[in-house]
């Protein structure tokens, strides 16, 4: 649930500020009052107010001066100027300096309610936009500025499908960034000002999943003490992202299929038909076509969700992105941990490039975070990574060094034995024999 919008009423007349506070509290806003500009700035710093209703004529700091200081301290805060008829000209001056609007005392109840409601909606949109921007900025090195042709193709597909309402299925191994791609698609769609609602279908039992998706009425089952809106309802006018769709039980697939066809639903235990309008994006790490062929996934539901498919490549197939990603995570964790680390030692980057990354980008982020915790110098060394220090440090024998080198080259070639043999300048049979000798197996 989102936090209530915070309103601050600033007026030197107590009956005005208190009556307005009471009026807006009845609408569910979180309302504070301040008797002066100085008092208002202290409250703003303490509580992080979203909307300020400011009287223009106050002793000491007047409304105009307060508005200027609010602009400096909290640029996203919305200022509404309250004025008596005589000071309308000053209110117009406030508008020129960035006030959202002004209203003349005494207020028509309808006018002031509508004005504050509009300001609250504007605040919600700003907050949503900021959250999306931060999310995308965070994701950008993984998705947008990636240098590999594979990821460039993914971004191209996202741009093509985002403005439509087509159902999209995102496939890829765990940790490849499926949710971030879904979010990017939402941010670039016409529904971007609507909600982006996420449900991980693999984490819930069938009954709980059904209730989470469709909602329930009070008394629908034991423990249903109140009405609950489901994720499908919450995604109205926005995007619904269902992760791990391959784990959804068959009965729930039938119910979801019906909603996709009819665009209506009924809550569990309810009779009311509710219209819903959302764009569906699903994701899975499973091979759904194989699941359908094996009879474990409904074909009619699969055809409905798989209108447009985007396959995310595993990190081992886009190793050219690893240096940029590693630098990105290094910078991010350096800020979070307040550490000054210059970069990666040459051996460390070689180790990152050689490792096969079964956990993909998520594993890379975790490995770098761990390395930064262990690092005591100004550069990350190979020994800081969880997949081990270079074997020469532990065992300097020729056999150990050869085994480690073969492992590294195989990993860099995604365990393509023919390619690794060429790199090592030996024939494939010799490489197979050495792999057998050193117990090296495909991950």
């Amino acid at each position, binding site marked *: 649930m989102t936090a209530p919008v915070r309103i601050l009423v600033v007026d030197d*007349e107590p009956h005005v500020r208190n009556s307005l506070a009471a009026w807006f509290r009845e*609408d569910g806003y979180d309302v504070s009052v301040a008797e002066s500009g100085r008092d208002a700035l202290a409250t703003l710093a303490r509580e992080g107010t979203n909307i300020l209703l400011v009287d223009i004529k106050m002793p000491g700091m007047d409304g105009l001066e307060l508005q200027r200081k609010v602009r400096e301290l909290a640029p996203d805060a919305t200022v509404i100027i309250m004025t008596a008829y005589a000071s309308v000209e000053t209110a117009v001056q406030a508008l020129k300096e960035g006030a959202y609007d002004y209203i003349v*005392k005494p207020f028509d*109840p309808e006018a002031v309610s509508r004005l504050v409601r509009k300001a609250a909606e504007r605040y919600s949109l700003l907050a949503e936009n900021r959250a999306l921007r931060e999310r995308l900025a965070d994701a950008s090195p993984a998705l947008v500025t990636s240098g590999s042709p594979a990821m460039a193709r993914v971004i191209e597909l996202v741009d093509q499908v985002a403005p439509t309402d087509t159902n999209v299925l995102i496939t890829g191994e765990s940790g490849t960034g499926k949710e971030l791609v879904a979010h990017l698609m939402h941010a670039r769609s016409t529904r971007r000002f609507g909600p982006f609602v996420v449900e991980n279908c693999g984490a819930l039992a069938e009954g709980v999943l059904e209730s989470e998706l469709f909602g329930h009425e009070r008394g629908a089952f034991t423990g249903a003490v109140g009405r609950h809106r489901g994720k499908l309802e919450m995604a109205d006018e926005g995007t619904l992202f269902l992760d791990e769709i391959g784990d959804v039980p068959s009965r729930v697939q039938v119910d979801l299929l019906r909603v996709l066809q009819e665009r209506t639903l009924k809550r569990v235990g309810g009779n009311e038909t509710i219209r819903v309008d959302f764009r569906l994006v699903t994701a899975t790490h499973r091979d759904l076509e194989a699941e359908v062929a094996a009879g474990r996934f409904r074909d009619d539901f699969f055809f409905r969700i798989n209108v447009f498919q985007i396959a995310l490549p595993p990190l081992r197939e886009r190793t050219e992105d690893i240096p940029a990603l590693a630098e990105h995570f290094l910078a991010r964790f350096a800020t979070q941990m307040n550490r000054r680390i210059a970069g990666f030692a040459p051996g460390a980057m070689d180790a990152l490039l050689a490792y096969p990354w079964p956990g993909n980008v998520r594993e890379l982020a975790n490995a770098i975070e761990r390395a930064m915790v262990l690092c005591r110098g100004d550069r990350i060394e190979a020994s800081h990574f969880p997949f081990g220090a270079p074997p020469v440090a532990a065992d300097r024998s020729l056999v150990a060094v050869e085994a480690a080198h073969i492992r590294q080259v195989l990993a860099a070639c995604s365990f393509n034995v023919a390619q690794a043999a060429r790199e090592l300048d030996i024939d494939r049979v010799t490489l197979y024999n050495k792999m057998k000798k050193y117990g090296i197996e495909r991950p």
Partner: protein
Amino acid sequence: MNVRLLGLGEIPPALAEAVLAALPRPFAGGEVASLPASFEHCYDRTRAQVDAACLIEHVPGPEPGWSNLALTGADLFMPALTYVFGISHLGGRRGIVSWFRLHPEAEDAATQMRFLRRITTEAVHELGHGLGLVHCVVPDCAMHRSLWPEGVDLKRPEYCPACLTSLEERCR
């Protein structure tokens, strides 16, 4: 939860009885009484209206298990607002409803029924605030904000299921 309807100034006895009889769950019943307080000093001569914030201070605090609601024919305002239909202390179980602006234009029997329904709806609204409810987004719930008399006609003098559940929990 019982309701004490208090007449502020002259109030038709049948009106208060009709409102009391029409109150929905969770209100079980109540009584009608009059409030002898004078509100001369709450009257604003320049606006020719009564200050609701001043007036509510004359509504006595209720006993446990009761809500006190005053009914008046005076035109109410709040210092920053041109008029209000009523006022409550949020969660304080006391409030006021004015019927001054709820009168329909005509005086026939049908409009009288509508008038009574409006007062009852606003009484249910202020009683809800008195028990801590804020405004509701459901358009026909009594707790939906109404800013003009015809807006009151769009509501029912009852709470929506979510508001009723919340009220019943507060009354326990």
